[in-house]
């Protein structure tokens, strides 16, 4: 009987079985071959022949080793499904891949959770930012055929995006070939609504009768304003309420229709409630009530003939374009209209160009908005970078797993599986993972957009971000999930299925993973670069915010409290209102804890600044140039003391400025330098365009102070006494000795005791009032978002660097063991592994700095007081990231020195 054992042992050699197991198999198989040999001999074969056949059967196509490899070194196996193996069964294959992928993910819960959470953070951040971009830029107005809704603007001295009622009628009648209808709306007037002894402030739009026909929606209750209403001043005292206002302030009273109320002290009838989410002019503005245009006289300032006054430009025009009308036709028709009206009314309608453009969802403007798009694109780009960083981390984990699974894949390829099929299967796995991440991302995104939409604008205007998730947000999140599944999965899948399979099947485990190194290293280098870029961008935003917070405003916002006063809301006449303001001021000044108090028409950075064209005596303006203009504020005595604006020259506004005394103004430095450079401006005179008979005499010069925003250069500005030009509404401003907010209730209580029916909007400290969109709001949001993304990116990069360095250290355990056994000192081992970390961090830092240079160029217009190449930010952030990343590679390097040479050498 021949001896088979040696032949069998050779066949099993590559398996590296445990000796006892190997012996068992050899015994069993050799017995089988003995039986087989005997059978062949009995069958009449020669000994030589029988021996040859038996040996062939042992070594047949190395099947024994290959088959045993799978059984003895057990790994997840693709199940055999009868009839579902051919490539043409794409659906069956997909279903099989999906189930197989799901099983693999379920079998490695730690990996699955880490990868899905990483992707969920990335996708969630993108979803939150996209939901904001969606709410501001993409979501159309909630009206039927929003693309047909147009608005108009005119250029020229009397131009702008507002028109008079007579303009509206003329334009509408002459553009019937373009627009099926055109309505006018005077947006956002404050009114006081009194019902059953309760007073509320209500933001009201005054609209022409046909306004409600344009959106093509139905009222939730009652009726809208009728086309016949609104054409006569003071007629048709009816009110349509906004849905949310009706719910929040009127208890969602279903019997509200027909009830009586007072608006600014005048009786009106509530006739209807608009449908939920009704925002026909802007997706951002939540108007609270709608009244016929003629009722605009309830503010006690609008003259009763305003509907016939061509100069009274208060209406935004909203029109519905007829289907099929081209932009060319719009332009040519409007050109004719503009020329005709300008010729007929050269003073009131001196329009050069009249144009119509689709009403932006954010609301009417003079021009279609563009800046917002850049902001949105910038933040979406930054968020996409974070997502890519997250994908890189997941790709890195998948790469490690791919090298572990090379044995499995080798066998499948040896069994005839096509490479594309295996890549497809691995991609299915990463796509499943990404879909899990996508679901998590929607949850994270929802939470994020909750936070974003709860951000207050710190403004007295009902602007709200409606960040509800719609199909666009869902679609975006789904698309992100699919894209990240492919990004994270394609490289590992490609790597896992390329290479020399014979080597994998025969070779030792140590060599199988070497090829993945370069790719993983490259990915982590890119990751360090990306996160550095994010951090530098965040650093630039934060530096801008800090600069603005510390910047000299020209006034002192500390210890100042603002309280809006609008006596008209309680039905006070003009005279009563001014008496009321006087008496409030007098009593507030007498309150303990008040250092000084004043009243002004506008509050710095409040977004409602006034400006006027002026003519300076003795300074002929060149005919080709625009007439000079300046901003102004109308103030009570003690204004400069209250606001902390330093008087440089002359005197401030004081009690000697009476209605009948000579008209005076206090100007700022910028105005003095612009119009009277190098001269003493005191005693000089200027007049307002259209009122040349009442020149203003400059009596004082004050420091420049911020009025409209924080970043643009300070322009000419003047202050005039309230006694000489009265205006409503106004804001009471008080400077307190202690905390300003502590004085709020006392001051409001005093106002309530004087005018119980006047709604008071509440007190706001001047420091809080700086956080408006004109002030710090945008910079705070930008710095907050960029910082959040930078930190997230940093965490992802730390995980990436740590992961890849510790992986490389593990791969070199054997080598480290040999080195230690040969007498290497731990310090040398530490340096060896640490250098691998350095080789990742240093090129990553270089890439990050270059990328940051590139993207910072886009940010130029959002940075104040910081250049786009700010050396301090670039240097400090780079050093910070380098230190953190090196620490992340130091930890695994240090662990590598703790390797026990004996254990390491036994490894594999």
């Amino acid at each position, binding site marked *: 009987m021949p001896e088979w054992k040696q032949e069998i042992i050779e066949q099993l050699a590559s398996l590296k079985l445990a000796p006892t197991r190997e012996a068992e*198999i050899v015994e*069993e*198989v050799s*017995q*089988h*071959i003995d*039986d*087989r040999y005997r*059978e062949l001999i009995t069958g009449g074969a020669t000994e030589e022949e029988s021996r040859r056949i038996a040996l062939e*059967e*042992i*070594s*047949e*196509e190395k*099947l*024994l080793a*290959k*088959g*045993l490899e*799978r*059984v*003895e070194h*057990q790994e997840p196996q693709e199940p*055999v499904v*009868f*009839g579902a*193996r*051919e490539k043409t069964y794409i659906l069956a294959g997909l279903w099989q891949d999906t189930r197989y992928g799901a099983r693999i993910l379920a079998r490695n819960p730690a990996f699955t959770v880490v990868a899905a959470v990483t992707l969920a953070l990335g996708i969630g951040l993108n979803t939150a930012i996209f939901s904001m971009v969606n709410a501001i830029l993409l979501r159309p107005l909630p009206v039927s055929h929003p693309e047909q809704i147009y608005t108009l603007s005119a250029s020229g001295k009397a131009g702008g995006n507002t028109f008079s009622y007579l303009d509206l009628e003329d334009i509408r009648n002459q553009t019937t070939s373009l627009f099926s209808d055109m309505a006018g709306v005077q947006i956002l007037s404050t009114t006081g609504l009194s019902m059953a002894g309760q007073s509320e402030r209500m933001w009201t739009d005054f609209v022409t009768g046909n306004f409600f026909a344009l959106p093509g929606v139905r009222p939730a209750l009652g009726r809208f304003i009728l086309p016949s209403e609104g054409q006569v001043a003071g007629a048709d005292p009816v009110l349509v309420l906004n849905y949310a206002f009706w719910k929040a302030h009127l208890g969602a009273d279903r019997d509200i229709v027909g009830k009586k109320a007072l608006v600014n002290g005048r009786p009106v009838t509530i006739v209807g409630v608009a449908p939920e989410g009704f925002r026909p002019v802007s997706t951002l503005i939540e108007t609270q009530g709608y009244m016929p245009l003629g009722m605009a006289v309830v503010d006690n300032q609008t003259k009763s003939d305003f509907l016939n006054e061509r100069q009274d430009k208060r209406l935004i025009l909203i029109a519905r374009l007829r289907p099929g009308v081209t932009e060319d036709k719009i332009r040519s028709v409007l050109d004719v209209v503009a020329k005709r009206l300008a010729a007929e009314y050269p003073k009131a309608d001196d329009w050069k160009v009249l144009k119509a453009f689709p009403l932006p969802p954010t609301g009417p403007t003079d021009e279609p908005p563009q800046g917002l798009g850049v902001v949105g694109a910038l933040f979406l780009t930054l968020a996409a970078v974070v997502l890519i960083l997250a994908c890189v981390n997941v790709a890195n984990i998948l790469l490690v797993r791919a090298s572990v699974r090379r044995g499995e894949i080798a066998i499948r390829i040896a*069994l*005839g599986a096509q490479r594309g099929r295996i890549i497809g299967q691995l991609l299915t796995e990463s796509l499943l993972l990404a879909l899990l991440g996508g679901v998590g991302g929607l949850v994270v995104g929802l939470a994020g957009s909750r936070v974003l939409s709860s951000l207050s604008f710190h403004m007295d205007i009902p602007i709200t971000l409606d960040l509800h998730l719609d199909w666009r947000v869902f679609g975006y999140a789904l698309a992100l999930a699919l894209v990240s599944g492919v990004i994270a999965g394609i490289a590992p899948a490609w790597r896992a299925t390329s290479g020399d399979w014979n080597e994998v099947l025969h070779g030792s485990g140590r060599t199988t993973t070497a090829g993945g190194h370069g790719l993983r290293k490259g990915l982590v280098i890119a990751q360090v670069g990306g996160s550095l870029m994010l951090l530098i961008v965040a650093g630039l935003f934060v530096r801008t915010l800090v600069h603005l917070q510390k910047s000299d405003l020209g006034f002192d916002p500390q210890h100042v409290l603002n309280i809006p006063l609008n006596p008209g809301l309680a039905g006070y006449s003009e005279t009563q209102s001014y008496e009321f303001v006087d008496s409030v001021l007098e009593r507030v000044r007498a309150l303990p804890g008040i250092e000084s108090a004043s009243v002004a028409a506008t509050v710095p950075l409040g977004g409602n600044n006034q400006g006027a064209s002026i003519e300076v005596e003795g300074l002929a303006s060149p005919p080709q140039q625009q007439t000079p203009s300046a901003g102004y504020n109308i103030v009570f005595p003690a204004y400069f003391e209250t606001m902390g604006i330093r008087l440089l020259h002359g005197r401030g506004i004081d009690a000697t400025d009476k209605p009948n005394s000579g008209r005076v103004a206090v100007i700022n430095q910028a105005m003095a330098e612009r119009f009277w450079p190098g001269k003493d401006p005191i005693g000089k005179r200027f007049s307002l365009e259209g009122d040349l008979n009442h020149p203003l005499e400059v009596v004082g010069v004050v420091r420049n102070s911020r009025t409209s925003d924080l970043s643009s250069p300070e322009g000419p500005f003047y202050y005039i006494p309230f006694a000489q030009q009265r205006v409503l509404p106004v804001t009471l401003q008080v400077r307190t000795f202690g905390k300003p907010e502590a004085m709020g209730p006392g001051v409001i209580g005093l106002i309530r005791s004087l005018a119980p029916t006047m709604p008071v909007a509440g007190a706001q400290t001047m420091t809080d009032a700086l956080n408006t969109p004109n002030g710090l709001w945008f910079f705070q949001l930008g710095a907050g978002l960029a910082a959040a993304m930078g930190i997230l990116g940093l965490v992802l990069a730390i995980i990436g660097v740590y992961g890849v360095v510790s992986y490389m250290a593990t791969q070199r355990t054997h080598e480290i063991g040999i080195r230690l056994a040969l007498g290497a000192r731990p310090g040398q081992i530490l340096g060896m592994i640490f250098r691998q970390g350095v080789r990742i961090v240093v090129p990553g830092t270089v890439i990050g700095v270059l990328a940051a240079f590139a993207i910072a160029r886009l940010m130029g217009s959002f940075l104040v007081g910081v250049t786009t190449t700010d050396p301090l930010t670039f240097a400090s952030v780079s050093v910070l990231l380098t230190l953190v990343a090196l620490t992340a590679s130091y930890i695994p390097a240090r662990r590598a020195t703790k390797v026990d040479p004996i254990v390491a050498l036994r490894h594999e």
Partner: protein
Amino acid sequence: MDSRILDRELKKGSAELLILSLVEARPRHGYEISKLIEQRSDGAVRFHVASLYPLLYRLEKRSWILGRWVEKSGQRRRRYYRLTAEGRKVLASQRKGWQVFAAAINRIAGVEHA
């Protein structure tokens, strides 16, 4: 997929069924199993040692069959495989699956021939 691989894949799927069936009635050793497969299929299906043992070990690893060394007097010890309770369940379901599959194949192939 070339015919050799199709053959192998089919064999792989059906081989489990064959082995489980053969050890259903009583425990058998590897050589006996391979002989029975060859005899009962009139030589159409053969399992040589190189493909049989990986299969047996796999079934054993899944606890569908259990191998035990048995010494009989005057003979060398041999490893006998018997069906486990779990294996019995698998066998029942594989039998059913095979019947459905084979019937389907027959229906398709039958129509082609007719």
